[in-house]
């Protein structure tokens, strides 16, 4: 018991942690396969990261340093809430700096900085089943995974090409793990998909409401689905980050006024702040609203 809260360390009771830990071990042994687990009710609502929170609560120890991001930012409401939850129930150190973190829980992004082998990335997953919107029935999708029959997915992607001239999936873009299972990487923009391939960090995926855990071990092949004549590509942005001048990173579009004024800034706020601390200057740095540019005195 943690004296401060009256709850167990990291909230979950030991029996629940053991159950989740066993599921994680199987998930690692069968990369990309969705292990069913007896997801518990958590003190935050389903769809708000209960899967990621249960995974983090089951792996985290007193020596870990936790970073939580949502949309790439440490300061979004849900990230703040989850970070506080662990600071309170586990008493662990928290950080906003990617390179200082040993456990990073994320919703919708992979940090821009290359992750290292001492790190674990925990994804919050709303719909773990990549085939769900093509086939609503669990009985059916389970069979398709058992047979490694992913024809349905290819047909869907190809229909996109026929209709739009593009694959119209821009996030939660399906990927094949270690040559076998196709997985939903959670709603990260497909821009982030290549970062999963041969990543040095262990990647764990938790879906609380849907009661599934899956994993990509470190240094594992993750191939985004595509076609020979339509290879997988990621989007590029026309201009660099307006604050730190970074290129080749994912940018948020910030609307500045009602006359079409807008700026593009790094989605990964820590990455952007580090670059600015290193002296990089974007073309609108002086003009950006404080809420976007951040406060100088971040503790």
């Amino acid at each position, binding site marked *: 018991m943690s004296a401060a809260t009256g709850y*167990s*360390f990291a909230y979950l009771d*030991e*029996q629940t*942690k*053991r*159950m989740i*830990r*066993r*599921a*994680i*071990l*199987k*998930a*690692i*042994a*069968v*990369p990309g*396969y969705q*292990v*069913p687990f007896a997801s518990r009710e958590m003190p935050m609502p389903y769809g708000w990261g209960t899967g990621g929170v249960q995974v983090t609560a*089951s*792996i*985290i*120890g*007193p020596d870990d340093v936790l970073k939580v991001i949502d949309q790439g930012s440490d300061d979004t409401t849900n990230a703040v809430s989850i970070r506080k939850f662990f600071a309170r129930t586990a008493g662990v150190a928290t950080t906003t700096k990617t390179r200082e973190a040993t456990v990073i829980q994320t919703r919708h992004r992979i940090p821009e900085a290359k992750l290292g*082998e001492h790190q674990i990335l925990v994804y919050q997953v709303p719909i773990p089943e990549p085939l769900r919107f093509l086939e609503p029935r669990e009985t059916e999708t*389970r*069979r398709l*995974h*058992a*047979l490694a029959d992913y024809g349905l997915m290819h047909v869907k992607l190809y229909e996109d090409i026929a209709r739009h001239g593009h694959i119209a999936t821009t996030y939660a873009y399906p990927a094949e*793990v*270690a040559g*076998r*299972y196709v997985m939903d990487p959670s709603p990260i923009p497909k821009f982030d998909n290549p970062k999963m391939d*041969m990543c040095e960090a*262990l990647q764990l995926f938790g879906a609380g409401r849907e009661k599934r855990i899956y*994993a*990509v*071990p*470190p*240094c*594992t*092949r993750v191939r985004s689905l595509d076609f020979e004549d339509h290879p997988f590509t990621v989007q590029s942005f026309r201009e660099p980050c307006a604050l730190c001048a970074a290129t080749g990173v994912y940018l948020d579009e910030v609307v500045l006024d009602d006359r079409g004024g807008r700026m593009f800034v790094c989605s990964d706020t820590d990455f952007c702040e580090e670059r600015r601390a290193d002296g990089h200057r974007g073309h609108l740095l002086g003009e950006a609203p404080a809420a976007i540019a951040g406060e100088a005195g971040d503790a």
Partner: protein
Amino acid sequence: MAGNALARAPLAAGFADPVRDSQAVFRAVMTALARPALPQPLAVALGPPAPLTPELAAVALALADHEAPLWLDGPLASVSAVADFLRFHTGAPIVTDPAGAAFALVADAAALPPFDAFAQGTQDYPDRSTTVVAAVERLAQGRGLAFEGPGIRQRAALDAAPVPADLAQRLARNRALFPRGVDLVLVAPGRIAGLPRSLTPVGEP
């Protein structure tokens, strides 16, 4: 019954700090399976009844409970104090059919039972398989069985002894069943290494 229990030697203690110790042991097991064939440190302060080694005991105490049954190999099953210790500290049922076990504890790794004696999962639910935890004396990187697969950048080699002479062939057959199969965890004094089913043995390095 109570009289018998009282007459026995007192049970060896479990984890000093169950919450912290379980977490630390689990992280070692997780890292071992995520980075296969690469021995990880596993510090244990347990004094379980022989031939249960401190590392075997630590894995069982960290991960087994009444929802995750244990199976014991011959040498472990022959000493009733081992089962008493495990039952008391984990609450896990101890099964005689290895196919019914979530975790199999093996003290004599050279006499490791064939993998098909254990649960290998189904094509639909490959996770419903046994994790086999075997104690060896030597566990070091390099000069031994070589592997490729998820969790290994290029190739990794593991020197473990004693193990069955045909371990590489057994692991190759295990890999051929993928996604079904068992996951093997080897423990030695102070160390742990994982050989999950996703690994492909590739002969000598």
